[in-house]
Every structure is written in C-alpha cells, then in structure tokens.
C-alpha cells in the first residue's frame, strides 16, 4: 500500500507562513511530494494541502510539529476514503494535421479541455485524481509530450465536516 497521505493545514495568512511550514518539513526530514496552497472562504486564512510520504508514526509527528507553528490553526490528515482528491494538469502535446483530431477525441473522453491550438502543438487542461492524470499522460506519450505542469493534490472531506 502506498504511504502517501494528504495533510490539510489551515493557517493565518501571515507573511512567510508557507516558508515556515516547508522549512519545518525540511528540517525534520519529512519529504513533501506535492503542495497546493490558496485562500479559504474566511478572509485572512490560507489552506494548504501537502502530500507526504510517511508511515503512521511519522505522520503523527508531522501533524504535531506543524501544529506547533503559532499561526497554524488546524492540521488534519485526510483519511483514505470519503475524501475528494483532485489535481489540475496542463499538458502540451505535439500535434499536427494527422494527429490533432485523435488527440482531441481522447481528451474529450477524459473530459479534458483544449486551451490552445497551435500548428504543431496542443495544450490540454485536465482535472482528476492521480490515476486518471497518469493514464492520460501514458496515452499522450506516443504523440510526444512537450511540457507538463501539475498543481499537486488538493482535497476535501465528503459531507458537511472539515
């Protein structure tokens, strides 16, 4: 089983808070694989979702250590189930007159959006969980992937509670 977990961190939106959180991970030797960060519905707060590789003991320590940062208001490890996880990807694929329509068709199957059409390339936007994105990348590989940008996972628990 994968040891990957998403940790939700809600902080006061003070200057340098991102640096504080990441520096702590670095210093304590925890590896952050992905991180998303942005605002929340309440002004003055920031919400980060960190994807980490950790066993349960380490995970427990990570949570407690992060919570020691004064401006951190809430820390939570998302459970494996009952959570919506999404990642946004932009992918630039080689495309010419021969391949363009094929690629667009595949993108449609994946519910991707074509954002840019150039004579020799396409940019496709795709949202989904990791597996879906990986699947799409694999299919695009034969056409030639020129560039790829992923946002990292952001997540939310199902139901009313945080």
């Amino acid at each position, binding site marked *: 089983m994968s040891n990957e977990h998403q940790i939700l961190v809600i902080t006061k939106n003070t200057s*340098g808070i991102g640096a504080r959180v990441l*520096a702590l991970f670095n210093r304590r030797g925890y590896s952050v694989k992905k991180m998303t960060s942005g605002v929340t519905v309440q002004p003055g707060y920031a919400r980060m979702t960190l994807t980490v590789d950790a066993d349960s003991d380490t995970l427990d*320590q990570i949570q*407690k250590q992060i*919570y020691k940062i004064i401006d951190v208001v809430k820390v939570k490890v998302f459970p494996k189930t009952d959570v919506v996880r999404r990642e946004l990807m932009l992918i630039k694929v080689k495309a010419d007159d021969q391949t363009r329509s094929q690629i667009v068709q595949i993108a449609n199957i994946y519910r991707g959006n074509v954002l840019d059409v150039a004579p020799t390339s396409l940019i496709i936007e795709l949202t989904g969980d990791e597996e879906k994105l990986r699947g799409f990348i694999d299919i695009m590989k034969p056409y030639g992937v020129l560039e790829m940008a992923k946002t990292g996972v952001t997540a939310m628990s199902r139901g009313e509670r945080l």
Partner: protein
Amino acid sequence: MGDAMINGARIVLETLHRMGVTDFFGYPGGAVIPIYDEIYKYPKLNHYFARHEQGAAHEADGYARATGKCGVCLATSGPGATNLVTGLMTAHMDSVPVLAITGQVGCALLGKDAFQESDVVGITMPITKNNYLVKSIYDLPRILREAYYIATTGRPGPVLVDIPKDVQLKEITRDEFDKLYEEPFALEGYEPNYKGHPKQIKKAAKVLKNAKRPLIIAGAGVLKGRASAELFELAAKAQIPVTNTLLGLGSFPGDHELFLGMLGMHGTAAANFATDEADVVLAAGIRFDDRIAGNPEAFCKNATIIHIDIDPAEIEKNRKVDVPIVGDVKQVLQALNKELKIGEDEAKVAAHEAWLTQIKAWQEQYALRYNEQPDGTLPPQQVLKTLNELLQGDAVIVTDVGQHQMWAAQYFTYRKPNSIVTSGGAGTMGFGLPAAIGAQVGMPKSKVVLVVGDGGFQMTAHELMLINQYKLPVKIVLLNNSYLGMVRQWQELFNDKRYSYVDLSCNPDFQTLATAYGVRSVKIEGAADLKAKLKAALDADDGVLIECVVAREENVYPMIPAGMTVADMRGKEGVADDVE
C-alpha cells in the same frame, strides 16, 4: 516628539516596562539607535552593555534560567542580529523564555541588500518559537505582547521581534498607543494544553499503584512548570526514587536519600541501573534526548513508561511510551497525587522495600570517586567536590560545556530549583560566562559560581568586562587542563588517542587576561591550599577569576558511549575500568 506623541522605539521600551521587564542585555548599532536614544527615559529598565551580541543572548538566557522570568536582549540589524543566533538556538534547545529584539533596515530598503540588512526572521525561523517582522507601528504593541506571551507560556522558548528603523522612528499619539496596548490579542492556533486528561491520569495512577520497582525521571519540565513541590510530595511519600536529567537537576533535593543523581551518558551507575531495571518509569518533563536514552529502544526496557509533557509533539518523538499525558507537569502531578491519595493513604504505593534496598546497594557499590594524580596535579573532580563542601548547595551553579560540565552535574548538590544554569541540548561552548553574568544580574543576592573550561572560556571571554563594569560578584572557577577535554576524551576512547587539534597548551595567561579586564584573579596549582584559596575567593564581595590548573588527561566516568545501553557503561565508579 511632544508628550502627546510616542515613537516606535519608545513603544518598545514602554511595552517592556509595562510587561514587568526590569533588565535587558544589548549592543547598540545603526538600526537600533532610536531605541538606545529612548533608554535615557527609562531609568527602571536596566540595560547591560554586552561586548558581543552572542554575550547578550546568553546573558538573557542565563537570566531567564536563574530567575524563571523572561530574558530580554537587543541587537542591531545584520551582523548584530546574526550574532544572536547561537544564543537563540541555545535557548530554543532548552526551552528558555527569551525575547530578542533586533533592529532592521527601514521598510523601504527591505530586500535591497541594504547596508547591514539580513533576513533575520528567515535565519531564526527554525531556532525560535515564533518570530516577527514588524512592518507597521500599529502592530508593534500587539506583537511585543504576543511575543512575550508566547515566549513565557506553554513550552517556553525564544521569540524574536525584528523592527525596521522607520517603524522605530514613526510616531503615533499616546492615546492611540494606550488603546493598541490594551487591545486583547487572539492566538487562534496557540492554546497550550494545561490540564492532563483525567483518564490518562487514572491510568497512570493505576500503573504506579501496581509498581514493584518504580522510578521517577524528572527533567527541565518540572522546573519550568514549577512543580518541584508536587514532585517532592509524590516521591517522598510514595518512596519513589528520583533521577534527574542534566537540565532537571535541582527539581528534587540533591541531598535526599531517594535521589540517585543524574542519569544518561555520564549519569551515575545507580541512576542508569535503575532505569534499566525499573518496572514503572514516570518521566516528568523530559524529552528522551539521546544523551539520556542512548539507544532509545533499549532505554527503560523493562518499564511501563508514563510520560508527562506539555508539548504534544514530544510524546513518542524519541521513545514509545505506554501512558502519555499531555499537560502542565504541575497540574498533572497534583491530579496524580490526588488520585494516588498521596498524603492520606499512600502505604500501598510505597510498598517496595526490596527495590529501595537494591538501589541503596547500587549507590554504595558505585559511589563516585576519582584518582589522585601520580604527579600531584589537582584532579578537577577534587576542585568541584571541595567547592560543593564550601557552598553546601547554597549557590547558583553555572557551567560551560564539556568535561567540567559533567563533573559539575555529578559533584554538586543541587538542592533548589533553578540552581544550575547549563546549556544541555545545544551544548554551546562559550555559554558559561555570559550566562553567569545574566544569572547574577537576575539573582543579585545569590552566590553565582561559574565552572568553565579553558576552551569555552576563551569563546566569550570578552564578557569579563561586564563583571568589572557592573561590579558583579560572579566567582569564575576556570578548570584549566589546557585541552578541549571532552573531545580529547572521545579521541582517547574512540580514535586511538589521535588528539587532533585539542591541545590548548598555547593558551593565554588567564591571570593577565583577567587583569586586562580589571577582574581580580587567583591561581591554584595544587591541592595543598585549594580549600583555603577557594573559600577566600567565594567569601569575597567582588567577582574573582579562580584559575585551577588541573590534571590534563582526566576522563569523565561513568560513560555510556553514544547510542549504546546501560550494559555498555564504563567506569561505573567514576574512574576508568582496569584494563586487562
């Protein structure tokens, strides 16, 4: 600036004053001139002029450790602030409340690599409990109060406030300031858990009641939580032996029959054997540091461990435990004592005579001793033993870091809380002298005795000037073996005596050095007049440097080599084992 107005610099001092600060340590510089300019108006705020910012930081730290109050230090931007770094790290490692105030270049110059600009908030992020860059004077009163509050509550620690020069110079009206000062602040993510969970306390009580071989390991948390009385109540009435971590010394009377001395790498054999054989360990305010636990898996291997700590992150950071209790040690011990009916009906809890007999046997068999030197030079242990006889536990002992520190931990009787000031977690050489100065400033009526080696002394020797300038009666006992003794000991034991760069035969003449700073000094070279000379120096009203020329190659024993277990302990009686 008329009376109706107040500038940022003055707000700093006014706020410190209102929060009850009476002493602080600092070093002027371009970016703090406005603050220094306001000092004239605060005769009740005593500023002590360090000779290096590192000195100021350690002085604030020593002040805080000796008094239990918050230490305050002040430095300018750039190099002034970075010179505080070692001091802040030292305070952070040992959870000491220190408020550091630094000047910064004006807001308009921030990020431009201006003269004496340095990202001090970035630099000190991992070595402070929290830190702030104040970008508006309207935030200044709140931030200072928040900083002080954070430094002194929960698990204490250093907090740094970086104040750009233009913020120091900006003026607001007094009414505005008063309003800002009174405004309550909210720290949403900061709520130190003070009360232990009742269920866990019940569980702990049950475990203790059934213990056949109970042991208390008391650490710095007991001192910081002012829980010595509760600890004493529990240990004395329930007849539970107590051992201390280095930083926990003084939390339990060192002359009590239940006291085993320090545990860990250089702890007493009795203390270490007790950890090994105990069936229940109450770990109060300790963090299972590697110098205590050695191999954490094998530490207290037969024991059910109850761990009390105010910092939830300390639970199972270094060692798995059975009954964790997050909370203030004082409140938890009070609740635990109540649960155990301590003071009413503790006979059952106290029924473990066989264990006490065993411990007594260890104490007798492995009582610390030291060897006379064949060439008649003074054994360092003898100096400390004699000092201890003279002081009778009625002093604040300050140490630097190294062999002398471990001997000071072993040979002095610490009878009262906060009677030892030492850099434990960080092991900062150069800490001793400034920390002793800070301790003496904070405890003017106490006898402050610094024990320091010739290596560490030279790292901050410039602070001697303060002994003279402020007429501080600190007694500096310099154990001069012309070696970096602890490193040499490791090289002797683990590197086949390759004494790479530890020989300090090329030392300054410490007598002349003291004279240069106008500090009186004496030199003791043999055992003959040791006691008389020490007594004369201790009884004097002024600060004295007492240089003791001691045996060069003494080793600190007992010793459990790093990462190993009680079974690997060498020199159980304080002297090297006979080599076959």
